């Protein structure tokens, strides 16, 4: 019997050895996969035991924690002291583990998982010692006072305001309206309440960051891009002469200037220069520019300005949309010039859609002599012990247009505010450069009103882009330019 006994004992030991192998698999090889599973309750609870870092801006706390003791566990839940100030940017992190906005994209920093080596080591020791792990605090570039003013100016209308530091690309304000209180999300029925907020336009979602994900027809603000293409390619100079009969001929049809409500005064300007066409936002001039240089050339410059790609921002990629031509709700790249209505594209109609951040970046490029700054929201990340984990150094994304072109565009934009369509943005003693936009929506006299500007024009410090959605008889000049001026005045300390 002894032979069989040996066989059976070997079989028994092999079975037990197999258990060591299988346990090894789950406790080493599969650990990462298991931790990433959505339904991993242990991971979820572990997350809650971390004292998540604060999110601060301009000395104000935008996201903090409440400490609870529950069933022998110390857990932390999120609280947003300035709940409705910038919820679309900050986002939220819930007890159930869902997160959006910076709460999502900066999660590794906020939970202390991604800091420098010394800190990681220190927090790992705390974890082993069953002490609370402290995440790093995030300090944003936002200026709460400017942000609050922007929301106050939008006053519940749908739209967005973006303010950038012209020299660095730091985002000083990123207001999206309608807004909601982030503290509502975790309250009973609170999320449903948030979903019901639609703004005065009736169909905007408070959860969407209109500044980065709101796609609006840019209207005449797109003339900045067309003019850049016209001048930079060498096809035109600011003093190139056009004859404006009050319309432009597109595919054998008259495209009338009258459709452009930015334009005050006579419907037909007669002989004008390109600069004057920009100043008075004359559609026929730009229509002819577009027909001459072609839609592909305009799109080539648009792409250089950042259209057709997501803006490089600290928020999650899902919170941004790329600007560009859209067809059936999707970003669309036409095969050739014949697929593009070049004349209409030149003054920002056709299928062109742009985000307020994208238009702010166009203005910032012009302000910075043709170089585009990289926008950023995170100023600094500071570990729980006060040591700096990361600090953003301003970066330039590259030379988009020649410095000469930028200087010419700067001049033309100053003319807009001095004597053109944007006089409502004038600030006494400060030269302002800007461009109005009143985008047709095919809804009669309801327009999306734009104003994009920077100041002081001779030494640009701040860039502001404003869009207010679906305004009845609301022109860029009458609705958005005054908002932009108020923001600029606040930024300039006036």
């Amino acid at each position, binding site marked *: *019997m*002894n*032979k*069989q*006994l*040996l*066989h*059976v*004992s070997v*079989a*028994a*030991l092999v*079975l*037990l*050895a*197999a*258990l*060591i192998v*299988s*346990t*090894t*698999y*789950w*406790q*080493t090889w*599969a*650990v990462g*996969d*298991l*931790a990433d*599973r959505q*339904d*991993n*309750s*242990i*991971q979820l*609870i*572990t997350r*809650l035991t971390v004292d998540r870092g604060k999110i601060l801006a301009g000395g104000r706390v935008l996201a903090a924690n409440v400490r609870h003791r*529950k*069933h*022998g*566990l110390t*857990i932390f839940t999120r609280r947003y002291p300035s709940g409705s100030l910038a919820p679309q940017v900050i986002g939220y992190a819930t*007890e159930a583990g869902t997160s959006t906005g910076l709460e999502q994209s900066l999660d590794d920093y906020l939970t202390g998982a991604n800091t420098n080596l010394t800190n990681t080591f220190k927090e790992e020791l705390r974890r*082993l010692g*069953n002490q609370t792990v402290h995440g790093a605090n995030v300090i944003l570039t936002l200026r709460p006072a400017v942000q609050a003013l922007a929301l106050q100016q939008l006053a519940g209308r749908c739209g967005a305001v973006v303010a950038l530091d012209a020299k660095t690309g730091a985002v000083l304000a990123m207001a999206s309206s309608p807004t909601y209180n982030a503290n509502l999300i975790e309250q009973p029925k609170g999320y449903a309440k948030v979903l019901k907020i639609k703004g005065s336009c009736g169909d905007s979602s408070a959860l969407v960051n209109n500044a980065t994900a709101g796609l609006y027809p840019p209207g005449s603000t797109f003339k900045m891009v067309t003019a850049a293409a016209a001048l930079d390619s060498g096809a035109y100079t600011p003093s190139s002469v056009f004859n404006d009969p009050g319309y432009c001929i597109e595919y054998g049809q008259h495209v009338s200037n009258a459709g452009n409500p930015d334009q005050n005064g006579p419907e037909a300007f007669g002989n004008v220069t390109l600069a004057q066409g920009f100043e008075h936002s004359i559609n026929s001039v730009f229509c002819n520019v577009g027909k001459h240089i072609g839609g592909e050339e305009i799109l080539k410059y648009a792409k250089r300005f950042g259209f057709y790609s997501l803006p490089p921002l600290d928020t999650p990629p899902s919170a941004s949309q790329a600007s560009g031509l859209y067809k059936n709700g999707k970003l669309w790249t036409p095969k050739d010039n014949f697929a593009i209505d070049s004349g209409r594209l030149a003054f920002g109609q056709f299928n062109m859609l742009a985000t307020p951040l994208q238009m702010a970046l166009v203005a910032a490029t012009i302000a910075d002599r043709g170089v585009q700054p990289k926008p950023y929201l995170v100023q600094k990340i500071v570990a729980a012990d006060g040591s700096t984990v990361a600090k953003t150094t301003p970066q330039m994304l590259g030379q988009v247009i020649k410095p000469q072109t930028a200087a010419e565009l700067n001049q033309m934009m100053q003319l807009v505010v001095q004597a053109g369509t944007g006089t409502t943005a004038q600030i006494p003693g400060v030269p302002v450069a800007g461009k109005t936009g009143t985008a047709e929506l095919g809804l009669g006299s309801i327009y999306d009103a734009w104003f994009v500007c920077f100041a002081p024009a001779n030494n640009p410090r701040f860039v502001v882009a404003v869009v207010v959605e679906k305004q009845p008889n609301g022109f860029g000049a009458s609705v958005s330019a005054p908002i932009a001026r108020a923001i600029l005045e606040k930024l300039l300390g006036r």
Partner: protein
Amino acid sequence: MPLADPYLLPMAALLTAIGVTEIYRLGPAGNAFRQGLWVVIGVGVFAATLFWLHSDYRALERYKYVFGVTALVLLFLPRLPVIGEPINGARLWIHIGSLQFQPGELGKIALIVFLAAYLRERREVLAQGRLKDWGPLLVIWGAAMLLLFVTNDLGSALLYYGIFLAMLYVATARISFVAAALGLFLVGSFAVAQGTPHVRERVTNWLSPWSTHPILCPQNGQMMLRQNCQSYQEVQSLYSLGHGGFGGTGLGHGIFTGTTGKQVIPDLNTDFIYSALAQELGLVGAAALLLLYMAFVLRGFRIALAATDGFSKLLAAGLSFGFAFQTFVIVGGITRVIPLTGITLPFVSYGGSSVVANFLLVAGLMLISHRANRLEAGA
């Protein structure tokens, strides 16, 4: 028992200590106290058995049918209407007042004694394969299997079948029997899986515990992902292993309760105590625990090899293999080597019947080793 194997009892004591420690850690405090009490009873039963059978345990051989019937009765008890109670779809507990008892654990020992005696007596004839000699054995085995499927206690069915196969092989040296019986088992379990939703569910949970689309959850009639319903326990237990990782969280630092105070893994201190230990002690601790089981099994088989008579050899082999296979069924289920079936981890899991049965097992092995060593010393 001066000549008994000196390693078995310390190893059993160490496993028991690990179990009581983890049960105390998981709480509530009453559980550890009750387990401690059961350990005292188990040691009492252990001492009584040694005392009672110290002259010659082989007398048991004469009462083999008593053991066979006892095994059946113990298995049948949970089906009785008043004292039986279904837990998790399986009827394996009996209730007498506030006392809960899993008679199947003791039934296991009785069955091993019966099989050892019966196979010793009939092994030559069995090896010839004459049909009439198979009768009583097949009847008892068949009845046991049937009862187990009726009570839905798959873990024990698997365990008994494994023990039966191992002992049959030791007795007859016929690998073809083992192969035939294995084939029979596969066919049988496939048939059972078709007919019993409980069994089919276990197999599905084993093959694909995570579903990407919601499926009907029988517990609440809603559409849910499988990992949130049927395979919840298995999947959360794997997360527990993963959270422990190589080094573990440290004893007392594992996460087992949610923010609502609900236990993340149900049945943590009985069937899933291995998940709790693996999280807190990590791979290092879990592997050490398994090595301890291996050492115990190794000693058991050495005793079987040293034994001089067929009954002792078969008994020691049955007890040792049963011990090893029970560990394999539960830990293999937790680590997805085989479908998960609820069964206790010997000496470590919370539960009185399990503790008592395992101390009986140690007593048996010690009696056998004492006799073998005494004969050797005498010769």
